[in-house]
């Protein structure tokens, strides 16, 4: 690259300057590289899982290997990809720019977070590779985990350490949003992406410490047998599930809320229209963040928790469905009388609406007490949460990466390749996961290495599983294609203009094409809302009389 302008990418040179950077944009790039690598790893593991399940009986993995592979797939995808990715990559890169700040509030803490994250990630992956192949599933349920191999100690420590990265990132964002907004950037002028990251940060700060202490207790249970969770010692395994889900359910909102924020920004920009229900979407992000803490027990309807708590949790679960539904309606309504531009990021936004709506509606099904008794721990649940986590969170992330790509790299990607990859991802995703709804509602349990026994009753399982596996390959091809054209764009992509999408938020209107090391030359003065395209003569030129 021979950049002529002075920007954050070329402000300092060499690997060392990257590893010691406190620039939020560079830290965002560091997260992008790390999360990208882990996503690749998690994806390869998923391909192994799907290949094993493609045909009945043992195909490529033995039972133990299969259990180890899906465990690492879960741990990597949840703790090392979906939870850190959007806040880590886009939150870091975009949030300070969107609020008009020159950096986050605590840049050194921000870098420390990345190192903590990497330390946790390496502990998890290296522990799994070199110490012992843990097969507990990412949920670490006791007493299975407390009786498993000692390598569990590595994984629990890894989650503990990576948790602190998440806490400090969230803490940084909350303080940045509260204290570092540019003049004129009132709360109701914050872009919805920033609102969403802010809400996410609240969850990160409040929920993550609990997984920390849970992991400490599990660690001690495994190492010293303290008898809090292990029933053989008088402990209560269901209590572990409470502790675990007190974090891990809100963690679902750590995953999905930022993606919702991205979608809001995309819908506004690519419809060139005021985002319908702005105030509602903003506040519902915060509302979802809080309500997300009250519903963890819906993972436990058949676990042996009291009927009373199942009923309370089921009721609260529906409360959270309502603001979520209204968000979807508002996103669709945003296009009304807009000017819809179907570029790649917008394709992902529409894809998100399609997939997330399925994920949300099936969420209602598994939230209903009686129906969940049948569907719990079957492939129906697997399909449901992949529609939410991958179809929601990761598709949102991919859309966001396409949208902010020119800002991050100064280059454009090939639009045609982008559209083809998006179509492949869409087809592959639905083939992979929609078939699993049928498998699950018929009764195929999750985490199964083999389903031969079911074929007698349900001969269609063979075809459904094969379809799902083929779908996963198509999905894989689509994702690899994105990686290829993205890398190509870095080297050969045409130079981007400062505001290629005609967006009205500060990162597009008040910084260089590729932002300067210190973001803004002059402190921006904000005079309009983030989606006031009709007022943005500075972006579009004076309005023509019609």
């Amino acid at each position: 690259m021979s950049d002529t302008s002075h920007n954050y990418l070329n402000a300092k040179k060499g690997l060392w300057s990257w590893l010691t950077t406190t620039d939020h944009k560079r830290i965002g790039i560091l997260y992008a590289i790390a999360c990208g690598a882990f996503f690749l790893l998690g994806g390869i593991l998923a391909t192994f899982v799907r290949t094993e399940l493609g045909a009945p009986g043992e195909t490529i993995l033995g039972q133990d290997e299969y259990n180890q592979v899906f465990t690492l797939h879960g741990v990597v995808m949840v703790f090392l990809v979906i939870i850190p990715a959007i806040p880590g990559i886009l939150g870091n890169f975009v949030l300070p720019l969107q609020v008009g700040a020159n950096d986050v509030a605590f840049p050194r803490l921000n870098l420390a977070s990345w190192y903590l994250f990497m330390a946790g990630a390496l502990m998890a992956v290296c522990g799994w590779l070199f110490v012992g192949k843990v097969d507990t599933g990412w949920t670490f349920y006791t007493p299975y985990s407390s009786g498993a191999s000692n390598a569990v100690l590595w994984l629990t420590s890894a989650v503990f350490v990576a948790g602190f990265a998440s806490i400090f990132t969230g803490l940084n964002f909350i303080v940045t949003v509260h204290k570092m907004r540019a003049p004129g950037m009132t709360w109701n002028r914050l872009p919805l992406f920033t609102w969403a990251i802010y809400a996410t940060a609240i969850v990160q700060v409040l929920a993550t410490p609990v997984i920390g202490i849970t992991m400490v207790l599990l660690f001690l249970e495994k190492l010293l047998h303290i008898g809090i969770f292990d029933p053989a010692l008088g402990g209560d395994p269901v209590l572990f599930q409470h502790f675990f889900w007190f974090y891990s359910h809100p963690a679902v909102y750590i995953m999905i809320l930022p993606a919702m924020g991205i979608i809001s920004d995309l819908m506004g920009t690519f419809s060139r229209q005021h985002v319908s229900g702005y105030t509602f979407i903003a506040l519902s992000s915060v509302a979802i963040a809080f309500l997300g803490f009250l519903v963890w027990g819906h993972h436990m309807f058949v676990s042996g928790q009291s009927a009373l708590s199942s009923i309370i949790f089921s009721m609260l679960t529906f409360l959270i469905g309502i603001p979520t539904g209204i968000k979807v309606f508002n996103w669709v309504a945003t296009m009304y009388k807009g000017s819809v531009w179907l570029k790649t990021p917008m394709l992902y936004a529409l894809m998100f609406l399609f997939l997330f709506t399925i994920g949300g509606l099936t969420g209602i099904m598994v939230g209903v007490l009686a129906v969940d008794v049948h569907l719990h721990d079957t492939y129906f649940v697997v399909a449901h949460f992949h529609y939410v986590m991958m179809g929601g969170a990761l598709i949102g992330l991919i859309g966001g990466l396409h949208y902010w790509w020119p800002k991050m790299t100064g280059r454009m990607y090939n639009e045609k390749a982008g559209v083809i990859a998006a179509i492949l991802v869409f087809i592959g995703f639905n083939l992979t996961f929609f078939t699993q709804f049928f498998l699950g509602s018929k009764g195929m349990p999750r985490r199964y290495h083999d389903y031969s026994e079911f074929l007698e009753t349900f001969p269609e399982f063979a075809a459904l599983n094969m379809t799902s596996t083929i779908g996963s390959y198509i999905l894989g091809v689509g994702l690899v294609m994105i990686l290829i054209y993205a890398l190509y764009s870095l080297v050969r992509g045409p130079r981007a203009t400062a505001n290629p999408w005609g967006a009205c938020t500060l990162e597009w209107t008040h910084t260089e094409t590729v932002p300067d090391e210190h973001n803004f030359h002059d402190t921006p003065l904000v005079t309009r809302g983030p989606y006031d395209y009709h007022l943005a003569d500075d972006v579009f030129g004076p309005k023509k009389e019609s």
Partner: protein
Amino acid sequence: MAHSHHIIPIRILTVVFVVLLALTVITVITARIDLGVLNVPLALTIATSKAILVALIFMALKYDNKVNLLAVALGVIFVVVFLALTFADTEFRGSMGITEPAIVEPVPESSGYDSP
């Protein structure tokens, strides 16, 4: 340069310290008297009062930006949520006529344990 933080007078700090010491003495004394069911709530009330005193005066929440107070309040609320919803399970197993797993008490070892 505008930098006028509230300086808490020594007199107030001292009074708070003395009150905290007094409350400690009270909690020790009351805990050693058998008040039946009241022992636990009383001790918790005293502890909470002490914590509030420390937070408001020593930590200056009373004079501080209200956002900080809000953050603390949120933290406390979610501790209560955590406790309350967990108790909705642990304290109500086997209730409502639903066949619920009840805890199987292990047979107490034949030690010379006499209950209080």
